[in-house]
């Protein structure tokens, strides 16, 4: 009898003790990554602040990186969306450094200037664009259980930029789909799923109408799917996909799409998970990678947001965490993400898109304070 009461009081003691993170009670082992000698040398990263709120949010990233003493240093280049083309020195810098972090570049609408975002991707052959949309604790959304990665073909498709006026009043635009590009983006999608322990890849298409073009895309996806028998593969038509995203988003895991549908699906998924201000993303190619705000990279906010300095830095901070992992500095990435998630879940410092009134600087200070 006495033993049981002792046991019970011990149990009560255990349960009433406050659990801190990494508490010995939960017996969680710390994660360790074994580096190669020399891995800690500082790496140069090209930084493009961009237009609109771009400089504000890239400044936020720089501050946090300095506070963490992360082994990266930035080479800044100032380009704007209304330039005719990306300056050669910027491209050379990215080719040398292999990694770039970028704010948004605003393309003037209908202005005869081709988008610099698209130019960079084509020039460096960054053929896969990735957006990771997931629910964050503390971020109110209508949908739960959202954890979707949208991988979008980035170089061809509807964004080939091949348009011409046939006769006055009739304009044609070419959508080009090639087996080569479809296959490599499908390969990247399945490889991503394989390396990140994802269970399902869904191909999004409109092959019932565009039989040859999207049919070729699907064929390439099916071929790659056969090489990964452990990963489930299915196909969904794009309009049904959008409908399912707003009603049952938990059925999607990794999605691979051609260029235009990917744009729409990524923005829809980002919207249901909390907004484009929170979703990280990047563009990756065989030799280089550019990290930027996940969805809507061309949306650089409006004047008011800029004047009041209330832009949301979270998306770019998460993207820079992805960049740190890409550079193989995983523990810095973990620290950064934990700090940002803590600030969001506490909810004391919120920017305008969360309904708060804090400036970017206040949120950044809170994140730096939350770093451990």
């Amino acid at each position: 009898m006495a033993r049981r009461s002792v046991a019970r009081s011990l149990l009560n003691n255990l349960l009433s003790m406050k659990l801190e993170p990494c508490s010995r009670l939960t017996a969680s082992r710390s994660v360790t990554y074994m580096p190669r000698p020399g891995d800690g040398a500082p790496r140069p990263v090209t930084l493009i602040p961009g237009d609109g709120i771009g400089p504000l949010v890239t400044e936020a990233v720089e501050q946090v990186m300095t506070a963490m003493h992360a082994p990266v240093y930035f080479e800044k280049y100032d380009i704007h969306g209304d330039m005719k083309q990306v300056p050669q020195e910027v491209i050379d810098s990215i080719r040398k450094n292999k990694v770039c972090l970028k704010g948004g570049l605003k393309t003037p609408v209908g202005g005869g200037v081709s988008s610099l975002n698209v130019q960079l991707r084509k020039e460096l052959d960054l053929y896969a664009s990735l957006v990771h949309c997931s629910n964050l604790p503390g971020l109110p959304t209508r949908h739960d259980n959202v954890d979707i990665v949208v991988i979008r073909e980035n170089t061809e498709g509807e964004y080939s930029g091949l348009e011409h006026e046939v006769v006055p009043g009739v304009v044609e635009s070419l959508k080009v789909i090639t087996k080569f590009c479809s296959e490599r983006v499908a390969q990247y999608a399945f490889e991503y799923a394989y390396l990140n322990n994802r269970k399902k890849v869904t191909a999004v298409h409109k092959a019932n109408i565009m039989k040859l073009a999207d049919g070729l895309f699907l064929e390439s996806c099916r071929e790659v799917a056969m090489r990964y028998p452990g990963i489930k593969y299915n196909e969904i038509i794009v309009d049904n996909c959008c409908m399912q995203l707003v009603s049952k988003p938990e059925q999607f895991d990794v999605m691979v799409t051609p260029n235009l549908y990917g744009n729409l699906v990524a923005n829809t998924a980002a919207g249901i998970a909390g907004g484009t201000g929170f979703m990280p993303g990047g563009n990756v190619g065989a030799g280089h990678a550019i990290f930027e705000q996940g969805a809507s990279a061309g949306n650089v906010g409006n004047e008011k947001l800029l004047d009041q300095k209330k832009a949301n830095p979270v998306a770019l901070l998460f993207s820079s965490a992805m960049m740190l992992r890409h550079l193989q500095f995983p523990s810095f990435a973990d620290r950064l993400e934990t700090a940002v998630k803590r600030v969001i879940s506490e909810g004391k410092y919120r920017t305008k898109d969360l309904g708060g009134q804090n400036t970017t600087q206040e949120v950044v200070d809170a994140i730096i304070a939350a770093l451990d």
Partner: protein
Amino acid sequence: MASQILRRVVRSCSGGILSSPANHHHSSLLPALTRAFSSATPITATLFPGDGIGPEIAESVKQVFQAADVPIEWEEHYVGTEIDPRTQSFLTWESLESVRRNRVGLKGPMATPIGKGHRSLNLTLRKELNLYANVRPCYSLPGYKTRYDNVNLVTIRENTEGEYSGLEHQVVRGVVESLKIITRAASLRVAEYAFHYAKANGRERVSAIHKANIMQKTDGLFLKCCREVAEKYPEITYEEVIIDNCCMMLVKNPALFDVLVMPNLYGDIISDLCAGLVGGLGLTPSCNIGEGGIALAEAVHGSAPDIAGKNMANPTALLLSSVMMLRHLNITDKAERIQNAIINTIAEGKYRTADLGGSSSTTEFTNAICNNL
């Protein structure tokens, strides 16, 4: 929500009465949209019950119309079992002529038979009747709770060209090209209809959805046409929204939008997205507008062969589409009565079909609506 519906009722009633004489000095397409008639002379309308659950829900429509005393006479046509050489599809020439003659029609779900050598049924209807605009009003049904409560928008989609021109070819092995075509004529036509619809239904804002920062010439032309039409309607606010922004705003806050006008592909995706916001294709009405004022209202859901004949189908989509048809014919008072009856029946929650979470049969649901008239 009830106050919103009341406001919409008042707006559309007044819009309907005021817009009829004003239409005559718009482009030549529009006068055909207004019809002067007395409510005693019945109007003939073509009815395609369709396949699967089609005949059952078409029965519901006929029953409700009879109970509401609507002056419509139905001319039923069925999809044939063999290909008619004159139309290259399973729809007969007589069916198409009937729609051309009557100028209004109602279409149930049709299952496209698989196979080659014929055009799909929807494509045949679209091409032969020159249906250029697809109008889909999406509003949250009170009493049927989805994650979105405040949806009240209309999507108007250009239906003939754009990315769905069907012009594809293989350049060399492994390289395929698909043409997206935008013409001034088609863009002007759909923009005209969009603004006319907005005015006639008391809507305040029209948003053109595009991706002209990337596809500068094609979507640029579409936007230019919309701007031209917008100048003729100064009382309606006009704005332009890039498609990816639009998707994000729709899932975060659908109340930001009123009327959306878009080219073909974006329209397809956005209209299905909006249908998903309010509860799915089983509840969404739709109407196709053709040259010369032809209107073919249709239910966009599938033919559901697994529940065909079991009296379980939900006739809401076809009923709401028939209401759209009545509004097009300017029989607004009956349209309002039937629409309110449907909304009230669903809101009451006592009679709901299986897909809405209830257990009533089609006939019980239809009777409840007739009682609510």
